[in-house]
């Protein structure tokens, strides 16, 4: 029975690892949005910064 618990613990941990891989992939964004050499989120951030600058 203890072996089953160990197996479950390991499966659960590596499932979390896969979730973290997906989470990090979302932070980075897709390759297609990177034509200017900047990631999707950073490009969005720049647009946001510019908008704030205009508002000021």
């Amino acid at each position, binding site marked *: 029975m203890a072996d089953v618990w160990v197996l479950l613990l390991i499966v659960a941990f590596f499932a979390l690892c896969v979730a973290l891989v997906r989470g990090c992939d979302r932070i980075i964004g897709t390759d297609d949005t990177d034509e200017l050499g900047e990631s999707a*989120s950073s490009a969005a951030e720049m647009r946001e910064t510019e908008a704030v600058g205009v508002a000021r």
Partner: protein
Amino acid sequence: MTAAGWLQLVALVVLIGATAPLLGRYMANVYEGGPSRLDRVFGPVERLIYRFCRIDPEREQRWNIYALSLLAFSVVGFLVLYLMQRVQSGLPFNPTDMANVAPALSLNTAVSFMTNTNWQNYGGEATLSHLTQMTGLTVQQFVSAAAGMAVMAALIRGLSRAGQKTIGNFWVDLIRTTIRILLPISFVFAIVLVATGVIQNTHGFTEVHTVTGATQKIPGGPNASMESIKQLGTNGGDFFNVNSAHPFSNPTKLSDFLEIYAILIIPFALAFTFGRMVKDKRQGYAVFSVMFVLWLAFSLTAMFLEAGGNSKLDARGVTQTVSASSPGGNAEGKEVRFGPTASGLWAASTTGTSNGSVNSMHDSYTPAGGMVPLVHMKLGEISPGGVGVGLNGLLILAILAVFIAGLMVGRTPEYLGKKIQATEVKLVAIYILVMPAIVLILIAISTFVRSVSDESLLNPGAHGFTELIYAFTSAGNNNGSAFAGLTGNTAWMNSALAIAMLVGRFFLIIPTLALAGALVRKRRVPESAGTFPTHTPLFVVLVIGVVFIVAALTFLPVLALGPIVEQLKI
């Protein structure tokens, strides 16, 4: 500090300075896939493995596939090692008749070696068969080290390439690291160790009669082959329970010196590998300088504190000076053949590299002396760090330093021509926060667990708390060195330390690879007047400052409750 202590330190620095650039150049060639005179030897072996495992060496991977490959490889490694321990009594090559290992201890040991930690809750020669040690633990010592170095190669490619999507092929990096770097160097070093007196045989226990008429069991085993990769791969797990304090693992002053060199050489050499791979050797020198300054500072501190001894003993008339029969200083828990200074040097080197092997009992150090290895681990194993993962940690801190410099003085946050933006800083933040979070949370929970106070802690008060801090810091940083004075083989400690090791390994590797994936896509921006140079002494000082600020802000409160309060009581 004794003249012998100074001599050992100077000789070590000279030897590392002479050989690290050469090894660094060789390793850069391995990771760049350049032609080598050794291709005739290693090429056919690699091609055979590629064909057998159906690996296409020309096919590179995006970062997430690289990460999933590493995870899959680690799961299989865990399962094989776990199963091997659970059924070892029925397997061959068990001359010492070792029984099957209990599930919780098998979990801890399998996780420990899969994650390159080598924390030893098991009793070395008194728990595991020769087969488990040779084909279970030692194989993991090779491949877990190779996996860490593969991740490092991927991160450097992320920095050196521009406008691409792939960061290499995990299987190729793993195989090339093992075949071309770790195996040949370990083979040669194992022979050197045998020459210094480290044992390598297939014996079980040999029963002998002592001069007083008692009987004693002398252990045997294939030790030198394990000792070699244990040090070179910054693993730290020994064939014997008392690790490198055992005379069969570390018999002489010369073996001690060579083993410290083996612990340090690959991590230091990787700084030069980095400089070559990014086509700017000055960057490698800067990284090497950060590693070297930190390692030297911690080594000298530990050596001086242990050579100085305990002031309370002086007050009671106990002599702690060097004499013909005593190495002087704080000698408790230390081997007479090494003495306090060499033990201090080992302690600082093993905890700055995520090696974790010990040649003395850190629990017996002076409170401030014992805090040196503890704080050294808490810096995140970057001085010079474990093989591969140490350089990763330092590069991530360098990126953080660039970002902070950008905030402070208005320079453009760039590292090696890559803009450091929100994406990169988010991934760096995950990396920086994971280790302290898991270490501090598990320490906090453990203080409420009854089995910890009743069974695990052997000392009360601040010293007992330091033992607990040390255990989780060691596991969370994948170091594996033990403070001693703590019984780790309980259900809670086996499980909690296993979780700390797993999180400390994979939750740092994943954001590192993601960072490589983010950086590899970026195009290089031309250097401008606003670019902060990252090869100057100023940058070296800035990175060291960031290292200390991150560690100090995170861990000072918990240290104040342990070793600091204990030192103030003296």
